[in-house]
């Protein structure tokens, strides 16, 4: 099943009045259960492409279909609701809410969906147990290591059972062992739950894990190959 379809995406930024062509004529289709890495040098448009896929940014031209729905026709509130239900985000800087504990950070995404407290607690415990981070439940982000925070961020991203996880340089702030562990975890989630993972990264170990590797250069898709089954 196709979860993302991009048609002729163009993105032009204005950088102090100077137009910057970040994406040029991107056509792309992502299917359910893919483990895709978008690679490329800095400034190639990886993050911009990921933001467009995640409905965080709007293209200058072209159409974005998420689960076969044209998101350009949706209001800001509808896009927020769509992101909440269908998409999960993992950021380079973890971006947990500093005043909440790990458990509360995971619960927060469920609260936004209106899930009642008891069910939130149960589901958060279940996810934490699956990711092996139960002992972090009562800790706040400043009491956790980078790797631990990123695991909690992954838990937050998957807790609402989204169909797509978008991870922007998720290992950039982690040492290689921690990064490898995180990728193991994500691969497991992909395998066990058929979750779609889309990474943007220039980290070798992330690229090596890719099942599908898309290389970007100057906002264009340079190559798109299935590297693993």
């Amino acid at each position, binding site marked *: 099943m196709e979860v993302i379809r991009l048609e002729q995406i163009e993105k032009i930024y204005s950088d102090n009045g100077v137009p910057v062509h970040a994406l040029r004529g991107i056509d792309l289709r992502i299917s359910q259960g893919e483990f895709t890495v978008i690679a490329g040098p800095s400034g190639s448009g990886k993050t911009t492409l990921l933001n467009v896929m995640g409905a*965080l940014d709007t293209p200058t031209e072209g159409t974005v279909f998420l689960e076969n729905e044209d998101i350009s026709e949706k209001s800001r509130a509808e896009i927020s609701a769509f992101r909440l239900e269908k998409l999960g985000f993992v950021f380079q800087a973890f971006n947990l809410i500093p005043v909440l504990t790990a458990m509360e950070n995971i*619960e927060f995404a469920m609260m936004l969906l209106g899930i009642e407290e008891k069910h939130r607690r149960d589901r958060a415990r279940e996810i934490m147990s699956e990711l092996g981070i139960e002992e972090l439940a009562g800790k706040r982000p400043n009491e956790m290591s980078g790797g631990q925070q990123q695991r909690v961020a992954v838990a937050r991203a998957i807790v609402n059972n989204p169909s797509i996880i978008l991870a922007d340089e998720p290992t950039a702030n982690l040492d290689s062992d921690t990064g490898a562990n995180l990728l193991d975890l994500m691969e497991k989630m992909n395998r066990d739950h058929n979750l779609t993972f889309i990474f943007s990264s220039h980290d070798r170990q992330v690229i090596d894990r890719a099942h599908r590797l898309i290389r970007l250069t100057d906002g264009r898709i340079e190559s798109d190959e299935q590297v693993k089954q």
Partner: protein
Amino acid sequence: MLLTIAWRNIWRNRRRSMIVLISVIVGVAAMMFTDGLSVGMIHQMLDNRIGSHTSHIQIHAKGFNDNRVIGKNIEKTRIVEHAIEQTPDIRHWSRRVVTYGLLSSALSSSGGLIIGVEPEREPNITSIRESIVEGEYLSGAPHEVVIGRKLAEKLQVGIGGKVVGMASALSGDVGSDLFRVVGIYETVSSEFDKTHMFTTLDNAQSMLELDDRVLEYAIIVDDINRVEEAAAQLRRNLSADYEVLSYIDLLPLLVAQMEMYDEMMYIVYIIIGLAMIFGIVNTMLMSVFERIREFGVLMAIGMKNAYVFRMVMIEAFILGVIGTAVGLGLGALFILATGSVGIDLSMFAESLTAFGAGAIIYPKLTMTTVVNVVIIIPLTALVGALYPAVKATRLQPVTAIRYV
């Protein structure tokens, strides 16, 4: 959970939150104290006017209040007294003769009100007997007069001194009598003390050739809040030949002043509220700017604008509620502590006594003040948070996430 987040966010920057809280607390306490002081002063002015002469209700012959001439007297006193006795809620009443006249001593003279009162009944109505600072109150013997300290100074008489009172008699002639000063009183109003002299009702009636006629009935009711009901009942009990006036009718300037004070307090509320709004706007704006990245993340994971808006508003509301509660407690404590002993404003004594308020002001805590503060301050905090909250909802997640 939003409450938890809001609460913890407030304490992320303790110093900033404490500064804004202290400003709210001080503002609320100051607002309450100013209000309490004004209310206390106004009530004192009113109580003093009621207690020194006005009483709660006065009955005259029709038109007397507008044209205080001796011809507008009450001849059929029995009818009025029967009406009074038929009216519930009336605790005390007394007959009076009130007329403008001249009081002269050997050295000086002064105009003012010559008031004939019933020495045994009048102390239930006014506090002149308690205000005697030299000599004694009227005993009922003929030719006694009680005058205020200021008048005594002007006439240069003391206890036992002789004064001559003169006023228009009923016949149109000048009625006069020789009085002996038996008491000197001093109220909180220097103006009153300068112009009011008291003698017995019999003496005044005789001097003014009134026989048993009186010019005024002064009435005190059980509950000041039921004055209008009692006055209305008296009007029903009496014919149109009489006028029944409550202290609200009799003291229109003071009542207008009370209303003006109320309005002024709203201006004070607005000024303090505006100052607080700027404090809250500043604090909440800083708080939003510090968390731009966090708001970006929240929006990215699907938090709707309404939630973002609510989150900022809740934080401001909590600050407003805490500030109000503590400020209210402090203000109430201060008012209650000073309410019984009073605040000595002797340095402004001259102007305060001229206003009839007294040099010691007893602040008064009213339910209106509490309700005003409880409603206005948290609302003010919410108004102050509107702009920062709207600002937060305008953030674009994609740029907010990258904000450093």
